Every structure is written in structure tokens, then in C-alpha cells.
């Protein structure tokens, strides 16, 4: 049994995003029927597992064998219940962004949080973005060469905490997992040219208030609504 190219991409997507609900899988595979067929094939191969974890559509996540097939060295685990809403929001954000013409023309790259976390040292408490979008230098867009930090805000934090996270993202100079001395070095260009905040209605006010406290750095914060499908 072999995987179609589209199925393989969807499997890697599910592996990178911790898991994926069936309605979003349908968007990736081209429909409900093809999504169910893909899930069935993956289950038969031992690459994925499915279950109805909460109200709404069932969820699919990639097993250890599937992660090995995808070439990912993550620890295989079922998506945790408290994180389902956030995982769905981030996945919807990625699907919406990857569907744009500019993203495809530029061959941009989404570096997911799971990948960042895998490189990041264990036991170090540090905020990690929900994803990074790398725009190649040769991309035919004005922001070619930039790295964006993506944050999906489903539930509101405090304004102070959100401001601190924004400041940390915008002043960071080193990659995640780099030596502590390189994380924020004055004089070096920042790692993230901008931070993109996708907010639920509940979190929008907090994020806007936090951005207002940033001063000149606020120009590098983009605030938008979460795309359709981000919330069940």
C-alpha cells in the first residue's frame, strides 16, 4: 500500500501540528470522503490513530511509525484535551496562509512549534511561538528574506504577559535552542521581522492593548482575526 503525494503531505502536516481534526484534514485532502479514505489507509499502515476526543469531528494523530515514516523525531503522543482548541486554531491559520497565492509563489516554509520545541533544550522555560514562516530571499514579494513569528490567541492572557511575549519575540536575535548568550544580543538584527497575532474575539482586546504598550516595536505586530474553521 502506498500513499498519494497529497496524502503524504497531509500526513506530514498532521505530524507537525500534533494532530488534526477531520474537517481540516478534509480541506487538505480535497473532501470528506478522501479524508476518511486517507485516515483508513494510514491506520492500516500503522501510521496514524483516530478517536473522537471531544465534541465535534474526530481527531487524527500520527503514531511513532508514522513519525518515523515522515522523518520526524518527535515523541509520539495523543493530542492533549486542553490543547485541542489551540491546535485547531494554529492548524487553521497555517491552512489559510498556505492557501494564499503569495505564499505558494514564494515557496515559503512553515516551521511548526513542534519542530522548534524538538530543537529546543528540555527543561528551559521559554516562550515558543506557535510557528514561524520563513520567506526565501529569492521570493517575489516585498518581504522576502523575513522570518515571521505566528501566535494564535484563542483565550486571553493578561496584558502584561502578552506584552512580555511580544517583546521577547521581537527582540530575539538567536534561533530557539541556541546558547543563552546568543538569544538576545544587542546590535544584531532581530530574528523575527514581524509577529502575526491571530486572535479570537475574546483575546482581541488584550492583544491590541498589549501592542499599544510596545511603543515603536508595535509597528512590527500584525493583528488579525482567526480564520474560519479555527474554532469548532
Amino acid at each position: 500500500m502506498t500513499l498519494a503525494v497529497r496524502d503524504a503531505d497531509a500526513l506530514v502536516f498532521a505530524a507537525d501540528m500534533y494532530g488534526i481534526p477531520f474537517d481540516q484534514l478534509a480541506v487538505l485532502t480535497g473532501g470528506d470522503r478522501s479524508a476518511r479514505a486517507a485516515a483508513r489507509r494510514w491506520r492500516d499502515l500503522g501510521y496514524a490513530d483516530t478517536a473522537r476526543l471531544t465534541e465535534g469531528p474526530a481527531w487524527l494523530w500520527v503514531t511513532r511509525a508514522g513519525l518515523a515514516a515522515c522523518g520526524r523525531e518527535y515523541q509520539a503522543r495523543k493530542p492533549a484535551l486542553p490543547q485541542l482548541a489551540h491546535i485547531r486554531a494554529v492548524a487553521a491559520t497555517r491552512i489559510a496562509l498556505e492557501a494564499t497565492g503569495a505564499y505558494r509563489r514564494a515557496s515559503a516554509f512553515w516551521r511548526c512549534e513542534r519542530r522548534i520545541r524538538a530543537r529546543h533544550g528540555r527543561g528551559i522555560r521559554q516562550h515558543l511561538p506557535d510557528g514561524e514562516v520563513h520567506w526565501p530571499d529569492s521570493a517575489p514579494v516585498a518581504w522576502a528574506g523575513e522570518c515571521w513569528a505566528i501566535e494564535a490567541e484563542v483565550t486571553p492572557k493578561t496584558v502584561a504577559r502578552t506584552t512580555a511575549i511580544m517583546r521577547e519575540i521581537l527582540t530575539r536575535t538567536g534561533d530557539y535552542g541556541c546558547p543563552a548568550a546568543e538569544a538576545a544580543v544587542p546590535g544584531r538584527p532581530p530574528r523575527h521581522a514581524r509577529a502575526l497575532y491571530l486572535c479570537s474575539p475574546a483575546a482581541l482586546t488584550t492583544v491590541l492593548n498589549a501592542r499599544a504598550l510596545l511603543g515603536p516595536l508595535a509597528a512590527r505586530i500584525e493583528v488579525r482575526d482567526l480564520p474560519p474553521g479555527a474554532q469548532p
Partner: protein
Amino acid sequence: MRAVRRERDRYARHPVRHVLARGFWRLLGLAALAAVAAALAPVTLAAAAAAAAGWWRGWPPRRLYAVAAWCLPMTAAWLATVAAWPARVAGSAAAGAPLAGALPAGVGPGPWWLRVAAAPYRAWLASWQLAAHGHLAAAAVAAAPPAVPLGVLAGGLAWQYRLFRMRTGAGGLTPAAPATFDSRLWRRQVRTAKALLAAPGALPLISRNGLVVTGAAIRSVRHRGGPGRAAAIPYPRLRSHQVVIGSTGTGKTTLLLRLWAGFMAAGLRGYAAGGANRPLLVVLDCKGGASSRKVADRTRRVLRDAGARSTAIWPDEASLSLWTLPPGQLVTTLLDLIEHGTGGAAYYTDVMEAIVSLAVGAPCGPPVCSADFLARLDPGWLAASYAASGDGAAVATIRSGKRGFEDVELRFRALWRRLGAGLDGGGSFGDADAWYCVLEGTAEGAVAEAQARALTDLLAHYAVSGQREILLAVDEFSAVSRRLPIWRLYERARALGLAVQVSAQSWEGLADTDDERHRIAATAEGGIWLLRTPRPGPVSELAGTRSYVDTTRRFAGQGAWAGDGMSRTRLVPVLDADIVRQLDVGQAAYVYRGGVTYVQVKRLTGRQAALAPAAGDAPTMPLPAVAVPTQWPPAPPPPPDASEVLDEAFGARRE
């Protein structure tokens, strides 16, 4: 009247018969012991292996006891299995049923308590039966659950007995045997410590419970831990005064680097947890020259790996401003920078103090740089300045001391020319996580003394703000000890949140007088590190004494020494001065609270040191300069408009 003696005559027994009888009973005892050992062969083998491991690694007996304790879960699980084994199966096996061969060793019929009580005996029987049939591996497995913990315990007891006999001088064939045993034990303990150093990841800089690991323990007296264990000290000890003494080439710099990196890493961990202020390390390297620059570079790399954001090298790459001191303190510091006499020369000292006070306290405010200060040493300017503010007394003082201005100006001009620009910049200790200050103590002793004095005054002033947890490390202290009364700083450092670490090549290098040396060493609450040094006596005295059993032996005149003698208890130093004199490179004795731990220090290497630099490259990547107050660069221009993609994906921007 004849006196009657009740005790037996000393020579009533025949000496030959006495020796023969004694030999016979000893042989009988040995034979009995050998019989028991053979009968309990599994236990004997485990005991022999444990004692041999203790001897080979130089472990303390308690480590073998710990191993025996860790084996107990295995025994408990085995006993539980024996007790819970189905009675029907066990009973049928005992009756000769075909299942007998499938039963595990130790299982047999009877109520559960009888099974548990009889399990060791049954396992012992089973192991002998298996061994008799040639199944040696199966016999070992059958006997292991009860035999291994018992054997390890017996091995520990035997090893402890051996150590006790040797420590008290009662063991060995000759009186020299205990000393030979101890020197060989030391070599094996060193080998064990070096093996631990070589094991990858065995000695992290910070242990899981937050202790600063300095290396592997070789031996400890009155301290916890021992051979084969990490030698670690809690962070608060690095926040107390410490003394490091060691000759050149004994690994002092390696030890200091480890302590500094540990201070930085543990301090940053506490700071990240919100429990402490950010750490600040200030090193005064009073030797100077190219070697100090190399150490500075190595320090920077090591501290960088420990998490330090930036390390400033003073005065090569960064400078400080003496003029940030408050006016009163500035006057004192400026006067201390210049050597002045006593007795008849005290008059000139008073004149200088008056002139400097007037220059610093001028109505226009204190000077902001050396040029400003030198410009004020002009009686005309000073008089005009004070006259404008209506201070007639000051004007009168200036006029009366007019003749002294030229001399004072000349001396300060020469001083600033020799000091250079290191104290005339705009930096502050708060600009970096670590400052490595290179003082040219070897080439220009007087200049180094003045610099050390100015830097400690600046640091003491900065410490008053209470923003940082500071460790001041003074390396090669003897070069500046004449004019840097560090013990004065000791006394007020605790209140300032400032810890002082003094290192010298010898006891004499700690201070000029013996009183000051003792004062420095006695107040080292964080402990004293002693590397190889020819005169460890004073530190040995400070470390205190312990009781020691000393045994003498009677020499019969021919052949071997007799088995009888006398033991007595006497006090000996906790710190063995002979061991200190013979320490190898990288070995240190850590003296703390009446105990001592001998440590094989783990060397730290900076991350870049692992990479071979290309020809012409700098040995390390330079960090951003911190000579001027560090500021973030101005905000970059807004990024280009990406509405094209964002609007398409997420709709309009939210403001």
C-alpha cells in the same frame, strides 16, 4: 613469713607448645571459616566481588551498603513471588509431579510464611543441585535474590574492617603497611575520580538539585560524599568569601574558571526563577600581560556557555567611569590612588586632601572626567568659582594653599597618564554580566595597586544599589595586597551583597602581615581551596583536628613484629599537609567547617575551543563591545507592507 603469689608464672607454659597450640586453633578457625564460605558459595562470591570492587575503586564502605540496599527490591519481589506462587502447583511439584522442573528456585509447599522463611534455604538447595548438574548460570540465577544483597553487605563489612585495621595501624604485616596501603588507596581513588571526569555527562556544571559541581571527589574527611561521587557545593557558599591558594601550574585557573562559571550559571538560574538578583562577576587579574589576556578570553567563552550575556575585558575593550562615585567617596578614592607619606610628609597629605576636596566639591558640581578634574587644579579658577558662590572660607583656603597646587596637579597628571583611559570612560559595572579586569601587577605594580583600589571602590559603590549579586574575584592578590586592604572590604561586603574570592600562589601572598593573612583566611566562610603549595601548615591549623587511633607494635627482636601492642587516641590535623604537598595538577583540597574534600577538578572548555580556528581568525567570536552603556539599537523602520497575503488569508487588519 613468705608472700604467696596468686597469679600464674609468666613462664609456666612451654613457649613451643604455646605457639603450636595457638597455630592449631588458628588453623582450625580458618578451616571452619573456609567450610562456611564454601557452603555459602554464592554469598561468598558476591562478598568477594563487592570487597574487590570497594578496594579497586577506593569506595567508602557505605557505598557498598547502598548497593546492598538497592538490591533489596529484587529480594522483596522474589519473596513476594514465592509467597504468591499457587499452592497447588507448588504442592504437586513437591510430590514429584512433572511440573517440578518448571518451578522457580525457592518455591515450595507450605503456608505463605513458611515459604518466605524457607525460601533462602530452598534457593540455596536448588542452586547446589543445579550446579551439581553443571548448570552454573542457572545456579547463579537461583541463588542471586538472597545471595547478592547478603554478599554485598558482607563484602562491605569486610572492606570496612580492612579499612579500620589499616586506619588504626593494626593491620598489615609490618608497621609500614598502613602507610603503604593508604598511598595505594589514594592512587586508586584518584583513578576512580579521573574515570568519573572522563565519563561524558557525568559532571554537569550544575547538578539536578542546583549544586555547583566542581569535579569528582577523591577522598573526604568529615564531609559527605567520597570517591566516585561528584564534588559539589551549594551556591550560597560561592556567595560567601572564599580563599584559593595554589602554586603556578597546579590548576588554579581551571578551578577558578569552574567556580566562576558555576556562580554565573547558578546565579542566572536563581534570577530566572525570580528568587535572586542577576549575578555579576568581577575578576581582578593582578598579574597582567599576555597570559592574563588568554585567561580573559577563556573566561569569556566559559561564561558565555554558562549563560552570561556579555563579558567585558577591562581596560582593553571596556572602560569604567571613576567619576560616577559620589563626591565624598571620590575624594577618598582619588587620595588613595596616590601614595602619600606619614610623619613629616603628613603636612603635604593634608594640603593635597584640601585641594582635592575643593576641586571635587566646586560649586559647579563634581568633575566628569580626568581632564575636567585636572583643569580644576588651578587656584585662579577654583578661587573664582567659589567666590562666585560667595564661599569666602574656601577662597581663603585656596589662597593659603596656592603653592601646593602645582605639585598636586603634577602628581595627578602623572597618575592619569599611567592609569590610562580605563577609569575615564562611560561604562558601569551594570553594563555586563561579567567584568574581567587585567591589572599589570607584574610590569607596573604601583599602577596595578592604584587600579585595584579604584575598581574595588567603584564596585563597592555599585554594590550599594543592591541590584546584583556580586562576586569579586581577586587573582594573584599578592601583586596588589600592599595597598588593597581586602579584609576591610570583607567586613562590609556581606551587608553589600558582595562576596570576595581571593586567590594567591602561597599563604604569604594573601597579605603583607600574618595578622591580615589569618584575618582573610579565618573569615572565608565559603571555604578554602588549597592546591599544591609548599606551605599548607597555616591552613591545616585553621582546618582543625580530628581524633585518630595510633597503634604501636612490639618488636620481638627477631623475625616479624609481634601481634601485641598498644593503641591510643590522639588529635591529628583534618587536612593532611603531606597530601596537599603532593597534590597533582588539577587536584585541590576544599576545606570547610572542619572537614576537607580532596577534589579532581573538572576542566571547563569554552564552546569555541572545540573548533579549530582558521588561520588568521580571532580565537573567539568577539562579543559586542560594552565599553559604553549598552542600549538596544534604535527601532528599525517598519517592515514592508504584507497586506497582500495577510488580507487574503485572514481579512482586514485589526487596530
